[in-house]
């Protein structure tokens, strides 16, 4: 009986801790956004962070996008072959990527590559007192370091998702049309007939912006709230990747339900 009680109280405490963390994190993010005017006044900082988060993620995004497209094309072809509708493989690849895989997979990759780097960077700066030193030099670390990293992530995400989707479609084209021999005309025309700009592409972009905001917010918060030791930073990095992945998948469900069902 006491074991059950302790388990229950632990669960209760964990829930309260989680809510408390959520509150602290939200306050933190609001403060970051409030001090973000520097991003407009000194765009150099934003550019540097977009390089850090975006440019350095390009390779993994392009390669992964290509591979996902190749697999989608291949699997799609195999399945559609049975119903004699291999011409629809273009539609299959494009819609899967633009609506779901593009935003979601690139967000997950972004979290593991750029998100973890952001958390580690901020965490190490905290551990080695660099943030404190900045404070004592009358430079606001929120404005100088954290806000540019946050916005760099938010702005990089949609671009990365678009590149991922485009590479995926190219991959799908390569495997089905170039290698297998599906008709190129059918591939593109069926795709164009079924992919709607407002309904599919724009919604995909909105998704990637939402995911980018979530991942960047989590990365930046975990870095700032990390325990200032080597172990603390490594734990924070792990938390960033895990929490971001869960957040992206949960948000994907919510957004998909909102965007792609019903009379929209």
């Amino acid at each position, binding site marked *: 009986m006491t074991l059950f009680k302790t388990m229950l109280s632990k669960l209760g405490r964990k829930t309260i801790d989680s809510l408390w963390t959520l509150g602290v994190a939200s306050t933190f993010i609001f403060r970051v956004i409030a001090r973000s005017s520097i991003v407009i006044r000194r765009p150099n900082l934003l550019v540097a962070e977009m*390089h850090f988060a975006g*440019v350095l993620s*390009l390779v993994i995004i392009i390669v992964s996008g290509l591979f996902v497209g190749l697999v989608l094309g291949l699997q799609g072809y195999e399945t559609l072959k049975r119903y004699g509708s291999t011409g629809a493989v273009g539609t299959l690849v494009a819609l899967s990527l633009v609506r779901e895989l593009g935003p979601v997979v690139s967000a997950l990759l972004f979290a593991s590559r750029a998100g973890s780097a952001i958390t580690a960077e901020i965490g190490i700066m905290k551990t080695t007192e660099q943030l404190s030193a900045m404070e004592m030099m009358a430079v606001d670390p929120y404005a100088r370091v954290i806000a540019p990293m946050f916005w760099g992530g938010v702005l990089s995400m*949609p671009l990365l998702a678009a*590149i991922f989707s485009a590479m995926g479609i190219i991959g799908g084209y390569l495997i089905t049309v170039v290698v297998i021999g599906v008709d190129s005309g059918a591939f*593109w025309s069926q795709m164009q007939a079924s*992919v709607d700009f407002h309904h*599919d592409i724009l919604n995909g972009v909105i998704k990637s912006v939402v995911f980018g905001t979530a991942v960047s917010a989590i990365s930046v918060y975990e870095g700032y709230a990390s325990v200032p030791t080597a172990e603390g930073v490594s734990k924070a990095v792990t938390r960033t990747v895990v929490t971001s992945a869960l957040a992206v998948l949960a948000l994907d469900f919510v957004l998909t339900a909102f965007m792609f069902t019903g009379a929209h």
Partner: protein
Amino acid sequence: MERSVIDLWVGIFVALGIAALLFLALKAGNVDSIIKSEGYLVSAEFDNIGGLKAKAPVKSAGVIVGRVDNVSFSNQSLRAVVKLNLDKQFQFPKDSSASILTSGLLGDQFVGIDPGGALENLQDGDRVRITQSAIVLEKVIGQFLYGKMSEKNGD
């Protein structure tokens, strides 16, 4: 010195991103659907609209000429009222007919317009008089079975 190299890479990155978006929008998507051209509204009443939804295409001779704006029910005529948003560049005679068709055998439903021969064209707010309701599969099967049964019994 190092700063300008970073600027260059970020510039390339942003350009790639925008190019990808354009690629998706133009090559993969429906170009026509981006430009919301001017349209005029006409209404049509149907006994049964089947699975017709808002934003479904309106086609004439197989070409998309507009979109279904909204679907509602009229308390006076007790029929479905469908508002069609037709592209201004396409004009149809006043006695054109509208039917609800299915793309393929089991596909989405759309509105097909068959042009009539009148001299005047439909204007904004006009009503399409001649309509053909959707073919509801269950009713067709029911009719077929009923027909078969009566054949058997009748003989």
